[in-house]
């Protein structure tokens, strides 16, 4: 166990899997000599050479398609999207093909493919670099979708992803690559389909994933200090499969829930969470399930506009207060 950044933990998982399994290789733009524009693959080309750390042309559809072909042959490519926003250019390969090959081959063919990269916004790069794609990719059967936020989880979930025989959409908290935490040095796995209770509480459940988990943790502190409210925070971390049980158990205890997401309100993960709660814990609810989402605009560039377009501590705290029938402050 030692302290590592999210970036280092992620790199370590890939490095250890590459050592363990020769069929694992990395592909993407600028991942070789440069070490990736977010330095996730820094130093790996020296260790594994350009055949296993492969720089690709700027052709997301092309190299993702190539990775699907490699995976069907038994290789295990880990493809870097420089940011998830560029995956729209590869959407046909991912959604129409990687997700469906196993089914359409009648179960004969596996696609052990991981696609990874920074997701979400908050680093002032405007809308075409700022999408959070949990809801979009979470929609499609055939894909597994995860969104880890701690250094511990990112290493364990990357290891799980590489060992999984299915295509995995690995959505990293791009704004948090530098954050640190305790991470085991040896390899380990964190299973998909299991949420993490990030903080225990009794009065209200805050449910989120990715960067917004940290926001919820700050809000939980604030609610305790300012309102004497004890909030439980659930980090969903696995979007598909989704751990309904942990969410339901928590709501049965607190009777109130706020679902928080960075992307837009309509058709989002928070809507799904709200639907599941009303489905399976309706009789336990003391208030409607609240949702907090980004503003209904493409993310703007200017810092003050960008901040205005994302969920804030105040918005989440007030949503919790509304769920508790307390006076809102924002």
């Amino acid at each position, binding site marked *: 166990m030692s302290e590592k950044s999210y970036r280092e933990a992620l790199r370590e998982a890939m490095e250890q899997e590459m050592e363990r399994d020769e069929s694992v290789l990395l592909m993407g733009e*600028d991942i070789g000599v*440069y070490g990736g*524009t977010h330095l996730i693959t820094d130093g790996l080309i020296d260790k594994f050479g350009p055949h296993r750390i492969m720089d690709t042309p*700027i*052709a997301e*559809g092309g190299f993702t398609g190539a990775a699907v072909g490699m995976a069907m042959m038994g290789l295990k490519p880990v493809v870097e999207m420089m940011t998830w926003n560029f995956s729209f*250019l590869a959407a046909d390969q991912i959604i129409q093909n990687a997700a469906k090959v196993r089914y359409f081959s009648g179960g004969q063919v596996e696609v052990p493919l991981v696609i990874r990269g920074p997701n979400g916004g908050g680093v002032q790069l405007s809308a075409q670099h700022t999408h959070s794609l949990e809801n979009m990719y979470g929609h499609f059967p055939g894909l597994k979708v995860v969104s880890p936020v701690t250094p511990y989880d990112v290493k364990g979930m990357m290891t799980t992803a590489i060992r999984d025989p299915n295509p995995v959409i690995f959505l990293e908290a791009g704004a948090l690559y530098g954050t640190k935490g305790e991470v085991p040095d040896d390899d380990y796995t964190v299973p998909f389909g299991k949420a993490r209770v990030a903080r225990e509480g009794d009065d209200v459940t805050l449910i989120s994933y990715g960067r917004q988990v940290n926001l919820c943790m700050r809000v939980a502190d604030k609610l305790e200090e300012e309102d004497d409210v004890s909030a439980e925070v659930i980090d969903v971390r696995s979007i598909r499969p989704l751990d309904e049980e942990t969410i339901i158990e928590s709501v049965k205890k607190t009777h109130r829930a706020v679902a928080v997401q960075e992307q837009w309100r309509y058709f989002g993960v928070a809507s799904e969470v709200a639907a599941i709660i009303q489905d399976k814990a309706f009789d336990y609810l003391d208030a409607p399930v609240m949702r907090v989402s980004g*503003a209904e605009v493409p993310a703007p560039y*200017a810092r003050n506009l960008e901040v205005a377009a994302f969920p804030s501590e105040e918005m989440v705290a007030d949503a919790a207060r509304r769920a508790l029938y307390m006076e809102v402050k924002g």
Partner: protein
Amino acid sequence: MDLKGARTGHGSVGLESDDLLRMYRCMLLARKVDERSWILNRQGKAAFVISCQGQEAAQVGTAYNLRPGHDYVYPYYRDSGITLLLGQTARGQFLSLLGKKEDPNSAGRQMPGHYSSRELNIVTASAPVGVQYPQATGSALAFKMRGEDGVVLACGGEASTSGGDCHEAMNFAGIHDLPVVFLIENNAYAISVPEKMQVAGSIYKRAEGYGFPGVEVDGNDVLAVYEAARDAFERARRGEGPTLIEARTYRMTAHSSDDDDRRYREREEIEGWRQKDPIIRFEKYLEEAGLLDDESKEEIAASIKDEVDEASEYAEQAPYADPEEAVERVYAEG
């Protein structure tokens, strides 16, 4: 390398001395605005800078063939030389750089380097590269359907040719003989990835397969670029279809303010290209042609410095948009 038109004489391409001085001033203005942008970045005032440095000749030489507000242009993020020539201002560039309310491109909504002007027919660029080419063919088709003689200029770096959009656009342009000029500014790198890992064969030679001309030109020779582009624009206006121009040049700065280019290229390589700086080369030409001397050079430099000073100060003082405005301008009314 067989570079076309090294040191084309200006008389032979039909340019007057006034034209040359206008081109020179615009190239220098683009350079100076860019240099100031990096200073603002280092001072912590500009979050993100992406540069034109080294590519001014490719940009201005080509754009000198555009009729502002009549032809259409799809510039890419380095093309401030094009947009300044068309009539955008240093002030506008800094307002955009700082994400201010008066940013003429996007009112603070889009990153710097993504130019947009309805009046000048400058189409806002996509951050994902290569997307401009199919759109440009659509605009060219619109000109053709309406029987107008407009030409569409679509620009990008060499790596923007690697994705499918570029192929799809060139195929479509070739089928319909569209009035579009594709300008590829080949500056040898895509962030860290060198051309040999990006481009199979040759870009300009691909045009032959689509059934239209492709030319390679010394992108640091503004007159050679002008001549190649003039031929392409004239061809398009005659209704004969597209041309692909590959301008060979060099990215003199890091990819952007987020990049550290010491990780992947030697300082000597950059030094070597500094000797071929398009602005220095053009200065030499102008001096030899008797169009520029020390005195007039200083005069131009001083007037550009004043313009840049005034513009950056104005932009620094200018207000940001109110946060409430973030939600405006998503949908058109109607």
